[in-house]
């Protein structure tokens, strides 16, 4: 692969932005939850699923997407949203429940909708798949060269919607790419206890479509596999399923006691931090200097800080707004 430097630098920037975003969110989430951890308190209440460690999947795929391509994410949506170019300020404001948020505070962290960049997500495991299929159907019906991507987890791959969605996409030869994040866990249930075969990519056979397993949590490997699949989809070649081995650094949600997880697992996973590795790669291959990367680090920090500042300073919606927007006019 011959990837332009600009692209590589953007990948780095996006990954760092995601990581910083998630770490900043983890802190914000803790606010008001000390000494008593109460999920309902603080500036960011409710459930919180963070994706630190899983940056390569989101970035490696979304680097190939245009603004008008559609992405449907999951309950753990921030990395996808950021990689797809969702307005970071309004996204953060949404997560803070503010009226300036993408959904005026109605959706929160699992319900981020940015129609400008065709991003949506959902708190229901497996729900993304048919919806991305439908976006692809719309594109195909209108003969537009647009692509839809459904992200979902290894746990979601055992939902019925996986089967139905992949079959529909295959028979209709739709421009959609299915991307499964294999982070080995669905909350406390390890993949090998939930999934009859070791790789969901092998389930491609059941739909007569290509299936690719990316066995390392590496943005370049993802980028390569995704590039091919997205291009094939865009050219009318139909769907692909890509599964990527990736790592969840945080608990399933913030506050997860993680009793089910081997004590040292996270520690071990972090040895293989995909951002650190990518950084090293960029430097060792003389693609970027420490200084250049430092600049990107700073840029990422600035973006994240601005987004959180915007969110914090934004007002809450008026309570009566709760009654609006069940329907549009």
């Amino acid at each position, binding site marked *: 692969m011959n990837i332009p430097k600009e692209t590589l630098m953007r990948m780095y920037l996006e990954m760092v932005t995601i990581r910083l975003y998630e770490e900043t969110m983890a802190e914000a989430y803790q606010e008001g939850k000390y000494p008593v951890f109460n999920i309902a308190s603080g500036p960011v209440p409710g459930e919180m699923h963070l994706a630190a460690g899983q940056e390569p999947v989101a970035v490696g795929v979304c680097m190939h997407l245009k603004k008008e391509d*559609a992405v*449907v994410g999951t309950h753990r949506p921030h990395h996808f949203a950021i990689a797809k170019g969702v307005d970071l300020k309004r996204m953060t404001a949404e997560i803070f429940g503010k009226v300036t*948020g*993408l*959904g*005026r*505070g*109605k*959706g929160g962290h699992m*319900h981020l*909708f940015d*129609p400008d960049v*065709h991003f*949506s997500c*959902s708190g*229901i495991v497996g*729900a993304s*798949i*048919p*919806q*991305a*299929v*439908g*976006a*692809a*159907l*719309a*594109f195909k*019906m*209108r003969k537009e060269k647009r692509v*839809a991507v459904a992200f979902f987890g290894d746990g979601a791959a055992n939902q*019925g*919607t996986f*089967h*139905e*969605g992949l*079959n*529909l996409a295959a*028979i209709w030869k739709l421009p959609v790419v299915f991307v499964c994040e294999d982070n080995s866990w669905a909350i406390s249930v390890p993949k090998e206890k939930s999934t009859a075969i070791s790789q969901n990519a092998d389930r491609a056979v059941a739909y007569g479509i290509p299936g690719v397993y990316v066995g390392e949590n590496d943005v370049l490997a993802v980028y390569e596999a995704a590039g091919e699949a997205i291009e094939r989809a865009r050219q009318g070649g139909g769907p692909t399923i890509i599964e990527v081995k990736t790592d969840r650094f945080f608990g399933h949600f913030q506050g997860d006691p993680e009793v089910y997880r081997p004590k040292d697992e996270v520690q071990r996973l972090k040895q293989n931090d995909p951002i650190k590795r990518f950084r090293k790669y960029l430097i060792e291959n003389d693609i970027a200097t420490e200084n250049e990367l430092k600049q990107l680090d700073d840029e990422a920090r600035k973006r994240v800080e601005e987004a959180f500042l915007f969110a914090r300073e934004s007002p809450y919606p008026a309570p009566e707004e709760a009654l*609006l*927007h*069940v*329907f*549009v*006019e």
Partner: protein
Amino acid sequence: MSAITSRKLTMAKAIAEAISLEMERDPRVFVMGEDVGVYGGIFGATAGLYEKFGPERVIDTPISEAGFIGAALGAAMEGMRPIVELMFVDFFGVAMDQIYNHIAKNTYFSGGNIRVPLVLMTAVGGGYNDAGQHSQCLWGTFAHLPGLKVVVPSTPYDAKGLMISAIRDDNPVIYMFHKGLLGLGWMTLIKDSTGPVPEEPYTIPFGKAEVKREGKDVSIISVAMGVYQALEAAKELEKEGISVEVLDLRTLVPLDREAIINTVKKTHRVLVVDEDYLSYGMSGEVAATVVEHAFDYLEAPVKRLAVPDVPIPYSRPLEQFVLPSSSKIVNAVKELLRS
């Protein structure tokens, strides 16, 4: 609202015509579902569309309701205006998550930024011995969950106008047609399943109940087959000097509470007829509306005639026992007048 017409159509044809007109008018409109193509829909609601618009806009699907209803949502969010058929409403349980957690809620979660112009059309109703997985109405179930408009036509005229309104609505609509009212050759034919339908497109606003018959002694409030049965009963009761007002709600969401209140103000007595299950459903909601907002006008307990909380049984005597009918309505009205 529209020129007087002498042309008569069945409700099934009226629905298919409405869809056809809108497909001509708007390239974003398309149909998908099981057997909607060559077959023309098991209940004929898409008859002729495949021939006219071809397989690209009239799409036969696999039996994957969560898949294709979810896909309809995805397409709607990307600017299409799908009409998706769930063959029998009774099958909703395989696709309900896409319906009520996504189709019904995405607009709200997005603070109004996402439009979901989608019509989910589906067959409801029993009376032909198809048992409890093929005979339910379930409008109460859908009306309970916010985010879907719930439309239930009772005449071919309404069916066409409400369907056009549904297609043009930027919000998701569940459109429930009653099998017994469609005018299908292979169902028990009732005379009002064929009725005058203007050729041109027209809309009927949601949330406007219709007084199908004026009366002063008692109000019967219903939808779909219940309206038809109420009108039959009203004729019967008229012979005995009882004057019945019949109110057809036409849509459960939005619900025309004002019309409910107005009819109570006039007659002071209410019978709700509901082919859906009795408890926690439409009949309860109408009764509650009455006691909340028209309490002072009410002269007798509200009465409810609905399926008595049993799955619809197969055998004819059993099914007839649990379904509303005009003779049961006659009896209920008489009881109501005695109380």
